[in-house]
C-alpha cells in the first residue's frame, strides 16, 4: 500500500507545483530592457497571477532575470548575485543582448553570450521583447520546472570549473569570495 517512493513522488509533485507557481524574480535591470519589467508586473499584464513576484534580495529569489547586455563590470555583480541565490534557482536571459550580444556584439566591453558564464534556463529573444514575450518566457520556465528540466543550478555546479574559466577570462580583477558548497 504505502510506498516510500510514492510518498516521495507526492512530495515532489507538491514541491514542483509550488515552485512552478511561486517564482520570485530578482530583476537585474542592466540595459534598456528594464523598462519592460514594470508593465509586466503591473495591471496591464499582471504577472502576479502566475505567482511571479519581484523579490528584493537574491537570498529570497528563484529567478535571476537579466534584462539586456552585460558589461564585464556588471557581469561580476550578476555572478555574485546568482551565487547568493538559493537552489533551485533559474536564470532567464532577456533580449538579444544576452543571447549573442545583440547590437553590442562587437563592443569591447560587453559579453556576447550569457550562457558561457551562467547556466541560462530560458532565453527570451527580441529587442526589446514585449511583456507578452516575457510572460511566455516565464510560462516556458514553469513548464521546464514541472518537467524537471530546469536544472541550471546543478549544471552550474557540475561544470563550475568551465564556468569559472570563462568568467575569469573576461573579468580581470577576480576577487570574489570562495564558496564552499
Amino acid at each position, binding site marked *: 500500500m504505502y510506498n516510500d517512493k510514492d510518498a516521495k513522488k507526492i512530495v515532489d509533485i507538491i514541491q514542483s507545483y509550488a515552485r512552478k507557481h511561486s517564482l520570485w524574480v530578482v530583476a537585474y535591470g542592466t540595459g534598456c530592457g528594464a523598462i519592460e519589467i514594470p508593465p509586466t508586473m503591473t495591471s496591464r499584464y499582471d504577472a502576479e497571477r502566475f505567482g511571479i513576484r519581484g523579490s528584493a*534580495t*537574491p*537570498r529570497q529569489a528563484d529567478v535571476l532575470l537579466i534584462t539586456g547586455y552585460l558589461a564585464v563590470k*556588471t557581469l*561580476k*555583480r*550578476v555572478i*555574485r*548575485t546568482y551565487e*547568493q541565490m538559493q*537552489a533551485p534557482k533559474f536564470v532567464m536571459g532577456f533580449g538579444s543582448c544576452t543571447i549573442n550580444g545583440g547590437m553590442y556584439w562587437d563592443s569591447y566591453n560587453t559579453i556576447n553570450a550569457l550562457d558561457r558564464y551562467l547556466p541560462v534556463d530560458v532565453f527570451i529573444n527580441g529587442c526589446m521583447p514585449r511583456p507578452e514575450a516575457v510572460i511566455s518566457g516565464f510560462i516556458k520556465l514553469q513548464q521546464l520546472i514541472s518537467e524537471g528540466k530546469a536544472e541550471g543550478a546543478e549544471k552550474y555546479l557540475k561544470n563550475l570549473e568551465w564556468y569559472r574559466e570563462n568568467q575569469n577570462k573576461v573579468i580581470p580583477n577576480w*576577487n*570574489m*569570495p570562495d564558496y*564552499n*558548497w
Partner: protein
Amino acid sequence: MVSLTTLYEITFGGAILAFIAQHTIKQLRTFIVIVTSALGVYIVWRLPSQATDISFRLGDFQILWGVNEYSQLFALLIAVLGFFTLIYSIDFMKERERLGYFYMNFLIVIGGMYGIVYSQDLISLFFFWEIMTWSSFMLVIYCCDDAQSIGLKYFVFSAIGAYAMLTAIVLIWANLETTSLSVLFENFTNLSSGLQITVIVLFIVGFGVKSAMMPFHVWAPDAYAISPTPFTALFSGALSKMGIWGLGIVLLKLAAQSGFYVWVQDIVAWIGAITALLATFYAIVQTDAKKLLAYSSIGQLGYIIVGLAIGTPLSIMSALFLAMLHGIFKAMLFMSAGAVFYRTGSTDMNEVTGLIRKMPWTFLTALFGIITVAGVPPLGGFAAKWMLYEATIQSGHYFLVIVLFAASTAAFLYLYRFIFSLFLGQEEKEYADIKEAPLTMTVPMVIMALFTLVVGVFPGIFINPIGNAMGYFGNYTFNWDVSSLLNEWGNHVDMMTVVMTIGAIFIIAAIFITIKNYRTTRYVTTKDIHTSGEIPTENENLTYAVDFYKPFERAIAPVLKRSIDKTYNLIAENLESAFDFLRYVYTGNGQTYALYVVLFLAVLMVFAELIFGIQL
C-alpha cells in the same frame, strides 16, 4: 560564631589587608579579597539564625545594629554581587595599576553597604552611608583623567543627598531626641505636620540621589560609565539599591504615617515614572555601551521607585523583586560589556561589532540580560514587570501605567542596540583574533544568567523571601505557588505553563529548522551579504551602527533638547563666577584690610543697638 561585628571586622579588615598585601606580598592580595567576600556571603547567610542585636553608646547616641528580613534581603544581594564582581575582577583588573587601592575601596564599599542595611539607627546609617559614598567615589575616579570631573559631580550630588538626609536626621534629633529607627517610626506622628513633610522630603532627596531619581540623576550615567566595570556592576547592582532600601523605609514606614501620604505617593510615583521614561529616551541615543546601560539603570530604578511609591502589596513586591533582579541582570549586562572591553579595549557601540562568534558566553549573558530587562517571558524580568503593571493599574494610577509601558517599550530600542552593536552585525577584521573572556569572568556571568532563567520559571524563590521581608512594613501575606503570579483582581499567570509552552515550541521549531536541509545549509561570513552585487572588501565596514535610531531621535528631539544636566552646569558656572567675585574682597592691599577692621569697628559701634539688641 557569626555576628555583625565579625562581618564588619572581616570586611573592613580584609580591605586594609588587601591594601597592605598589594604593597608587600602581591600574590596574597587576590586570595584575601576573595576569601573576604566569600566569608561575607557565608556570614550574611548565617546571620538571621545566629545574630543578636548589637547596641552600644557612641558619644551621645545609642548605636543599634540588628538583622531584620528587609535588611537581610539587601545584604544577600550585596554579598552575592560583591562576591561575583570580585571574582570577575581578578582577571579584569589584572593589568591595571594601584590594585591595592582598588580592592581596598571595593571592600570598603561592600562593608559600608552592609553597615547601611544592618543599621537600626540614623547615626550609624549616615556613618556607613558616607563611608560607602567616599569609597565609591574613590573607585569612580580610579580610571583616568576624564574621571575627575565626573567623580566630583558624583560626589557633589551624593553630598547634597547625604546632607539632605543629615538635615533630616538633625531635625529628628532636635525634635524627638532620638536616632533609633524604631523609636522614630513609633513617634513620627508626634512631629508637627510641617516637620513631617520636611523630613520625608529630605529623606526622599537623600535616598533619591543614590537611586538616581530624576532631577538628581545627572551624576549617574557618567559615573557608571567611567568607573571600572567590576565596580560598575556592583555600583548599579547593589549600591544604587541602598537608595531603594532607604526609599522603601521612608515611603512605607514614615510617609505612610503622615497625612500627606497620598500626595507623596503620587509625586514620587510620577517622578519615578518620568525618570524611567526620560532615562530610557536618553539611553536610546547613547553611543557608549556602558553609558547606555547606565541610563538603563536609571530607568529601571525609576520602575522600582514607582513600585515603592504606589504602596500596595503587589507593587511593593514588584519593586523589591525588580530591585533584587535588577541587581543581578544589570550586573550581568555590565559584566558582559566589561568583558567586551577587556578583549577589545572599547565599549563604543559605533566601533565594536560582531563579537558573537568570538565571545559566545558573553553574548549569552548579554542576551539573557536584555531579555530580562525587557521583561519578556520566560525570564525573571517578566514577573517583575507584570506585577508592577498589575499593581499600577489596580491601584488606579492609569496614566502612570501608560508612561511605564511607553518606557518599557522604548527600552527594547536601547537593549537591541546594545546587543546588536556589540555582538551582532558585521564581523570586523580588527577583532578577528579576539578570544572569549577568561573563565573568572564568564563563570559568574553565566551563573547569574542561568539564575534569571530559574527566577523566570519559579518566581516563588524570590517572592517568598521578599514576602517575608515585607513583614517589616506591615502584614502582607503572599501564599503563592512557586511558579505563579497573582494579581489583586484574581487574574494570574502560571509561569510554569508559560515556560513549558515556550520551551516546547522553541525546541520543536529549533529541531525542525536544524535538521531540515542540514547538509546543504552552510555558514557564510557576514561579508557575504546582499549588497546589490557589490563585493565588500576586507576593510569595508558595512555595519549600520552610527545614529542607529536617528528617526526615533528626530521624533523625540523636543525631549532630548532640554537637559537638566546643562542647567546644573549653568548653575555651577554662575556660582563659580559669583564666588570669584566674592573673593575680590581680599584685595591684597594691607591698607584695605586695615580699613575693613576700622569699618567693622565703626559699624559695630554705630549699630550696636541694632546688632546686639540692647537698649543703650
